[in-house]
């Protein structure tokens, strides 16, 4: 792996990559606002943004403006934040747990978050003091603690972690179904089942102001620990021997992953395969170093989920397909490819 020779060259490369990445993200967000059942021309989108962001004076069609500003833009921004957060969560778990199959969905963290969110909405756990996101966070943290403890009791291997994750997912999914069956009326139940598969339809601006800061904070937390994550390549003890305060780094990063997953699940439901597939796809391009992997995974995750959201809106005319269905339709074959590739290497 050849890096640029001089620090100056490195600074230039980093600047170019960051600029390119931001440009790609911007393009994806624009695409998310332009494309839809009623395609709106780029000029209209530009006018709405100019009016809303810079106070420019344009005569706007209030319906178009409403669709763009209140509906498509927040939805696209949350999709971006969510994609980035899920991809980062998968990446960090894969590096820390030393398992290529780790991701918040497979390790039961998403299922725990769903259970927490459902417990708060339907059962009224917390008596209105705990919000849906906090409920999801508690559920996610509980699920991860349980899965980690079970994996450890089973011998702490990397296969045990995935098996424990399956057990955890099943348990928490069953709890969620139980809560729904016990307490929800038919309409609530239908809404929740739709949300569980991943759904961005209800997203509005307040959701943006939760999703984006959490994704940005999670991204920074991961980036700061890029070198520490590299040091985990040869396992935990090797990382410790290389000077990484293993327990502190694990606690902090798993906390960040739990928070990101919980917030995204509480906003849009449990979306699978993003955290699993994106980091693997990105590794082919960037190599194994986290200083490149982290920004590239966040960017790819964001763009991928925006694209998946566009597809979910366009796939069936007049209907929105749950976004989790779209990510699974793309992710499951990609996952199969990863399995086959890993077999060749072993």
């Amino acid at each position, binding site marked *: 792996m050849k890096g640029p020779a001089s620090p100056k060259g490195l600074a230039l490369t980093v600047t170019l990559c960051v600029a390119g990445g931001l440009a790609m993200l911007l393009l994806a967000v624009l695409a998310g606002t332009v494309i839809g059942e009623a395609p709106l021309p780029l000029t209209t989108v530009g006018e709405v943004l100019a009016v809303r962001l810079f106070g420019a004076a344009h005569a706007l069609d209030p319906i178009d403006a409403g669709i763009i500003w209140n509906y498509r833009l927040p939805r696209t921004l949350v999709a971006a934040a969510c994609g980035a957060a899920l991809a980062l969560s998968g990446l960090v778990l894969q590096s820390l747990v030393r398992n290529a199959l780790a991701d918040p969905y497979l390790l039961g963290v998403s299922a725990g978050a769903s259970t927490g969110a459902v417990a708060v909405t339907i059962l009224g756990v917390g008596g209105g003091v705990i919000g849906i996101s906090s409920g999801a966070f508690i559920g996610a943290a509980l699920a991860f603690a349980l899965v980690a403890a079970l994996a450890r009791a089973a011998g702490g291997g990397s296969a045990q972690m995935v098996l424990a994750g399956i057990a955890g997912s099943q348990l928490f999914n069953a709890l969620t179904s139980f809560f729904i069956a016990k307490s929800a009326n038919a309409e609530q139940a239908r809404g929740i089942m739709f949300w569980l598969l991943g759904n961005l339809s209800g997203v509005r601006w307040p959701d943006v102001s939760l999703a984006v800061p959490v994704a940005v904070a999670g991204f920074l937390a991961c980036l700061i620990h890029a070198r520490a994550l590299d040091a985990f390549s040869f396992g935990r*003890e090797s990382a410790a021997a290389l000077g990484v305060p293993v327990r502190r780094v694990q606690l902090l990063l798993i906390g960040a992953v739990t928070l990101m997953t919980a917030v995204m699940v509480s906003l849009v439901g449990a979306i699978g395969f993003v955290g699993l597939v994106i980091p693997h796809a990105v590794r082919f391009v960037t190599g194994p170093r986290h200083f490149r992997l982290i920004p590239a995974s966040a960017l790819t995750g964001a763009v991928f989920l925006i694209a998946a959201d566009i597809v979910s809106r366009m796939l069936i005319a007049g209907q929105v397909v749950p976004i989790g269905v779209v990510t699974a339709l793309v992710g499951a074959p990609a996952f199969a490819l990863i399995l086959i590739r890993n077999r060749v290497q072993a």
Partner: protein
Amino acid sequence: MRVEAQGIGWHASGRGIVEGVDLVLEPGETFGLIGPNGSGKSTLLRLIAGLLPRAEGQVLLDGRPIHRMPRREIAQRIALVAQHADTTDTLSVRDAVELGRTPWLSAFAPFGPEDRQIVDEALAAVEIAHLAGQRWHSLSGGERQRVQIAKALAQKPRLLMLDEPTNHLDIHHQLSLLRLVGGLGMTVVMALHDLNQAMGCDRVGVMQAGRMIACGPPAEVISPGLLSETFRVGASCLTDPRDQSLLYRFHILENDR
């Protein structure tokens, strides 16, 4: 750097793996750790490197207790090459060796030309410069072992700990590794299975059932009596006609069944 272990020990599921070991390592000496399988050699190495939780006793580095030092500062002083190291990441040899610079880098001290040079030197020292661009997965066991040693050298430690470093190595690389280690000028502790290789150390410690039962210059410590007691083998001492050095040849004791 002076390393002092005072009454160190470690228990796992109620069983003492290492118990009450006292040891002082003088700066620059090469210390060999010998003992049968399961006698606690690897655990003792990890204890001295401060890598095990709930350890008994204490380890002092130049008088400072290791359990009060940040991991980063320990890693700037001690490098450990474990017996088994593997990764699922598609790292190149150079990537793996560059990991050795981790304890010296930070956001304010990024990987620079100096680090690059240290990595180049480490690669050259164990004769794997020509493999720098190869993938870890494509290497043989002996090549991987040398990559791990290069990673430890890139760490620029003052105490280098090697757990059976000559495992997997062909005889040429065994001998050149031992010569390299002897000429580094740093303190070296290594667990060894080849007792004749241990004869080349400045001092040896003998582990048996978690305790260090003997410690001193190899010519004084390693004797037919100790070998039959600790390793359950008989030994005849021979003299190499080339340089008059002593070496052992082993046989199974007849009454041992």
